[in-house]
């Protein structure tokens, strides 16, 4: 069950939204392995984004269920089930509600394998809708992937297409380590794509060149990929060739793809929704400054959320979440340097 297989030749496919792709992956995971259980706040009725729609009906209340309202409890339950050899898929209703669960994540989930010297590995998937773009209330648009990346022992995956969402989620379920799977709320219904039927996996730790280019590298993931592609397309008009790297997985990180792109372009812009200070861009930048500085022709620029909370509702969101214009301005900074 741990072998990951890429998409089979001849596999049929369907056009679907990102949330449908997630739902499809969850259904297949439940179908393939009786150890898989799916739970979280309101997961039984399909979840607030309908990612688990219909799954309780198909697989029963024993395997797909609501929990009491506690993120620490949901993470702790997942750890306990993992200790006992089950394969829990836990949902945090919004990534902004991960904070009460950080004790269980940091002190337990990430450390359990080492604390038991490999005797109690935890094969857990934690799904969390993250990020902004839909005018949500306070705390509902946070991007805490950087906090989770600080935890040794957990992996982090963030898809940007329906195809990847399904394949990466199925790979995460097969993975022997705890995997955080952040799903961009903005992309749930705004993006459609071809998704093969049945089981396939996209391997963790491999970035995707979303657009090739030679003048500048843009590193991004999740909800920012479409924004960066838009900026890259606009830059083309100005005669600039921008490479957009969709990291797909922050831990493990695809150092090879990053190295190759930086080596080629010598200029790097990093884009994420999270705050700048201690966002995952800090780690990306540090890695590049440590390993590939000889290739750099310009400062590494971060285009990110500001060092402030994500603002609620419509009032100021447009000034907070990076858009193509801001990415373009970041690109200009590095190419004009």
């Amino acid at each position, binding site marked *: 069950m741990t072998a990951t297989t890429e998409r089979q030749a001849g596999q049929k496919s369907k056009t679907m939204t990102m949330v449908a792709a997630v739902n499809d992956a969850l259904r297949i995971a439940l179908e393939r392995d009786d150890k898989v259980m799916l739970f979280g706040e309101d997961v*039984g009725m399909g979840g607030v984004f309908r990612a688990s729609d219909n799954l309780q009906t198909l697989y029963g209340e024993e395997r797909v269920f609501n929990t009491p309202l506690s993120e620490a409890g949901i993470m702790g339950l997942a750890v306990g089930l993992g200790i006992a050899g089950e394969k829990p898929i836990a949902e945090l209703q919004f990534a902004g509600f991960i904070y009460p669960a950080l004790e269980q994540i940091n002190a337990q989930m990430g450390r359990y394998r080492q604390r038991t010297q490999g005797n109690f590995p935890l094969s857990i998937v934690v799904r969390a809708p993250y990020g902004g773009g839909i005018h949500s209330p306070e705390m509902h648009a946070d991007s805490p992937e950087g906090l989770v990346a600080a935890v040794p022992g957990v992996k982090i995956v963030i898809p940007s297409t329906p195809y990847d969402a399904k394949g990466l989620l199925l790979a995460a379920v097969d993975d022997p380590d705890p995997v955080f799977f952040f799903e961009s709320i903005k992309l749930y219904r705004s993006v459609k794509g071809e998704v093969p039927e049945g089981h396939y996996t996209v391997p963790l730790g491999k970035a995707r060149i979303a657009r090739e280019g030679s003048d500048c590298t843009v590193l991004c993931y999740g909800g920012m990929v479409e924004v960066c592609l838009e900026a890259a397309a606009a830059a083309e008009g100005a005669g600039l060739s921008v490479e957009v790297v969709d990291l797909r997985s922050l831990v493990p990180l695809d150092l090879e793809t990053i190295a190759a792109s930086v080596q080629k372009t010598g200029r790097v812009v990093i884009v994420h929704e999270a705050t700048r200070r201690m966002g995952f861009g800090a780690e990306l930048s540090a890695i590049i400054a440590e390993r590939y500085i000889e290739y750099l022709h310009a400062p590494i620029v971060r285009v990110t959320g500001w060092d402030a909370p994500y603002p609620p509702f419509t009032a100021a969101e447009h000034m907070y979440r990076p858009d193509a214009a801001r990415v373009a301005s970041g690109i200009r900074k590095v190419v004009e340097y």
Partner: protein
Amino acid sequence: MTAATLLPDPRLEGTLSVLAPDGSLLRPDLVPDDETLLSLYTGMRRARVFDDRAMVLQRQGKLGVYPCFGGMEATQVGAATALEHGDWVLPTYRGTALAMVRGMSLAHILLAWRGHPAGYQVDPELHILPFYIPIANQIPHTAGIALAEKRRGTGRVAMAFIGDGGTSEGDFHVGVNFAGAFGAPAIFVIENNGWAISTPTSVQTAAKNLASRAEGYGMPGVRVDGNDVLAMYHVTREAAERARRGEGPTLIEAITYRILPHTSSDDPGRYREETEAQAWKSGRDPGKRLRAYLESRGMWSEAQEQQVMQAMEAEIKAAMLLADQAPEILPEALLEHIYAEPLPEMLEQLEEIRALGALE
């Protein structure tokens, strides 16, 4: 009143009622003075009118996601009315009626539900804190505020609301226990409306009721009919008096029902039959209940009713005008008030935002 509405609801077992659902008086000893009676009634009416209107405004795109409270106004109006000026109130997102009773202006409330910064600038004089979105976080704060008041010997109390679902969070436990341990003048009101989005209380916990938690924190637990505003008023007042006497906190479980969707974004049809909601709506409406009682005493008329409704509609209209005139949000708003003085890099970020505005 239909037959269904008359069925006793097991959730209400052991709760205090002052009025029966039909408005008949059960506890003459617990009826407050006329002025209070009228202010409780108009408080509920005004709140309900606002709530209905807010749902419409939300559908028109004039508010963000709105957490409606219609049908539950008695818990909030009763509890808030029982406090004094200077007492603190810590609401959940569903606490708009608490804010209204505390005197927060409707324009302010509308701006809050638009996410306009002005809507967050709560007036410290009102002693009501902003709507808490992350669940249960306010409970330890309540212990802290109450401890401060105790230390100063002001006789003020701090009251927090929380949902039935919210009682499962660690912060609920931690905060109530702290308040108990410190003997702090706090009141915790569990607004038990039967649901946490799609999760019924029976899935939330195996406890028969939530007031039973009180003993484990060394404080009294009180169960009350949350749709009976006189009962709510009474138990909150008693809890506040206990607290002021230095006898420590109280845990109140108010049984009510969420007859509406969770918020303007929710579709309860996905997870429940509406029969129970219908029964509560038609049979246990808190406004109708008190009105029937007031009418039986000749204290309320249809004319007065119309007057309150119309005044409220006018007030909301005026508030909308005011809210619409709120100043445009400047880029500064994003980075202001993070620290007393912005950090140097934040000033640079502000320049970035301004430059982008110029670009577009």
